[in-house]
C-alpha cells in the first residue's frame, strides 16, 4: 500500500464529502424531516480518511502539516469537518452535516489542485513549535468561522421559512433559530480567540532581517479579518444588531476569508520568503 499516499487518502475524503453533498441535496429536498445517520456516517468516513491523510503527511514531515497552501487548506477543512461531527451529536443538530458537506466538498476539490502542493525536499523549509502553533490555531479559527457560517446559513433558512409561514419550518427537524444564533455567536467567539492567539504567535516568529511586517499583504489581511470579526461580535453583543443581520455578517465574513485567503497568501513575502 506504499503507493497509497496521503493525497490519495485526501482524495478519498473528498469523495466522501461529495457523496455527503449529494445526499444532502436529497435531505434538503425532503425538508430535513427524518432523523437519520446516513449523512453523519458519510461525513465521518470523510473525516476519518482526512485524518489519515494529515497524519501520514505529518509523520513524513515530522511536524504539523501546515507548511503550504494544500496543507493549510486541508487543515482548515479537517477542523471544520471534525467540529461539524461533534456539533451534530447535539440534539436536533444532525443536519449540520448536510450544510457543512457542500463547503467541505467545494474547498476539498480546490485543495486537490496540484499547484497548491508543489514538490519539495524531505523536510519543510520552515518548522518549529511556534510556527506550528501559529498556523494550527489560525486554521482552527478559520474552521470555527466556517462552522459559524454553516450555522448562520441554517439560521437564515429557518428564519425565512418561519417569517414567510412555510410549512417546512415546522416540519423540519432543525434546531430553533434562537439556538442556531447562540451556536453561531459562540463559534465566532471561539474563532476570534483562536485567531488572536494565532496572530500573536505569528508576530513572535523569527523573520529575515529587514523583511517588512506591517506592510505585508497577509498581515494587513489578517488584521482586517480580525477587525471584521471583532465588529461582528461587538455589534451583536453590545449594539443590538439583529440576529438576521448578524447571521448575514458571519456568512459574508467567511466568504471574504475563503475568497481572499489563498490570494493574499501568495502575495505575502513573509509566507513566501
Amino acid at each position, binding site marked *: 500500500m506504499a503507493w497509497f499516499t496521503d493525497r490519495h487518502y485526501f482524495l478519498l475524503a473528498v469523495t466522501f464529502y461529495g457523496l455527503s453533498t449529494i445526499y444532502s441535496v436529497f435531505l434538503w429536498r425532503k425538508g430535513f424531516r427524518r432523523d437519520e445517520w446516513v449523512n453523519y456516517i458519510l461525513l465521518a468516513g470523510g473525516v476519518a480518511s482526512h485524518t489519515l491523510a494529515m497524519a501520514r503527511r505529518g509523520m513524513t514531515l515530522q511536524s504539523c502539516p501546515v507548511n503550504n497552501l494544500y496543507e493549510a487548506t486541508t487543515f482548515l477543512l479537517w477542523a471544520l469537518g471534525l467540529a461539524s461531527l461533534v456539533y451534530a451529536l447535539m440534539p436536533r443538530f444532525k443536519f449540520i452535516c448536510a450544510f457543512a458537506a457542500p463547503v467541505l466538498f467545494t474547498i476539498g476539490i480546490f485543495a486537490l489542485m496540484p499547484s497548491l502542493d508543489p514538490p519539495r525536499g524531505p523536510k519543510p523549509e520552515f518548522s518549529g513549535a511556534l510556527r506550528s502553533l501559529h498556523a494550527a490555531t489560525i486554521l482552527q479559527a478559520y474552521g470555527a468561522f466556517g462552522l459559524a457560517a454553516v450555522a448562520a446559513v441554517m439560521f437564515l433558512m429557518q428564519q425565512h421559512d*418561519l417569517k414567510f409561514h412555510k*410549512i417546512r419550518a415546522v416540519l423540519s427537524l432543525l434546531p430553533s*433559530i*434562537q439556538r442556531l444564533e447562540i451556536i453561531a455567536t459562540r463559534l465566532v467567539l471561539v474563532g476570534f480567540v483562536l485567531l488572536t492567539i494565532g496572530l500573536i504567535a505569528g508576530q513572535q516568529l523569527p523573520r529575515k532581517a529587514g523583511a517588512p511586517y506591517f506592510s505585508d499583504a497577509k498581515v494587513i489581511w489578517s488584521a482586517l479579518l480580525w477587525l471584521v470579526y471583532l465588529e461582528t461580535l461587538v455589534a451583536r453583543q453590545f449594539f443590538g*444588531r439583529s440576529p*438576521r443581520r448578524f447571521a448575514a455578517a458571519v456568512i459574508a465574513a467567511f466568504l471574504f476569508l475563503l475568497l481572499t485567503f489563498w490570494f493574499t497568501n501568495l502575495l505575502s513575502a513573509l509566507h513566501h520568503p
Partner: protein
Amino acid sequence: MSVVVIGLSHRSAPVELRERFAFVENKIPEALSELRASGLAGEAVILSTCNRVEIYAATTLAPDAAFARIKQFLIAHHAFDGALGDELYTIAEPHSLHHLFKVAAGLDSMVVGETEIFGQLKKAYDLAFSHKHTGARLNKAFQRAFNVSKHIRTTTNIQRGSVSVMSAAVELAEKIFTTLAEHEVLVIGAGETSEKTARALQSRGVSKITVTNRSPERALALAAELGGRAVPFETWPEEFERIDIAVSSTAATTHILDRAKLEPLMKRRQHRPLLLIDIAVPRDIDPSVNELDNVYLYNVDDLQSIASDYLKLRQEEVARCEQIIAEKVAALLEANKIAASLGRS
C-alpha cells in the same frame, strides 16, 4: 373460538346515539360478567370512550349468530327503544383483528394518529383482564395490538406534528425559542381560545403568564387559573419589554397592535425575537407587523394551515401503517393456527 367486534363509533353514529350506548366505567365488569354468563362469549373486553363503544368478544358461536345476540344484549343492557340500522357495525375475524390493531394505533380515530385511544384501549383491556374476563385469544390479540401500535409510532410519522390550532402555536414557539420555560407569555383577551393556547404553552414548559382583558375581573380570574398575573388593558404594551410570546384573542373590531405601535417596542426589546399569535376574528394585529425584523406573526388561518398540513402528512402515512398491520395480523393468525393445531386455544 374467533374474535368478533360489535360497536358504534364517530364514523357510524352521531354523539346522541353513542351516548345512549356508553358504559360507565365502574359498571363495565358487571356488564362483562353478564355477557359471559349468557354464553355469548368466552372472553370479552368493552371499550367505551366519547368516540366509540365497542365489544371485543372471543366466541365459539358462528359470527352471524354472535352478532345478533350481542346486539340484543347491547339493546337490552341500555334499555334502548329506538331504531337501529347501520350505526352498529359488526366485524368478524380476520377483519376484527385488523380493526383492533387500527384502533390501537389511532388509525380509526377522529384525529388520525392520536395516542389517547391507546391509553383508553389499554385501560379497557386491563379492566377486563383484572376481572378475569379475558383468556388466551383476547390476551394475545390485545398484547399484539399494543406492540403493533408502539411499533407504528416509532417507525412512521403517523403521530408527528400538531393537528390543532393550539398545538401548532406551541410547535411554532419551539421553532423560535430553545426552551419555552425561560420565556414569558402575554395573553391579550381572556377568552376560551386564549386560555387553551396558554394552557398548551404551559404544557411545554411556559411558567410565566400575564393576562390582560378589557374586563379586569375576567383577566384576574384567568390569571388565577393559569397561575399568572393580570395587568390593566390600558398598560399591556408596557409588557412587551419582557414578554416573548403574545397570544391575542379579543373581540376588538379594529387592530389593537400595529406597526407604528410595535416598532418602538421592538427597539426597547433590543430586537429579541417576538412571536405573535393572533387567533381573533376579526384580527387583532395588523399583518404589516410581520415585516418588522424579529417579529413572527401567525393568525388563525396560518395555524390552521399548519394543522391541516400535519393531518395530510399523517394521512399519507396511513398506507404504511396499514401495511404493517396487515403483516402483523397475518402473523397473529398464523400463530393462532399453530396453537390450535397443537391443541391450545
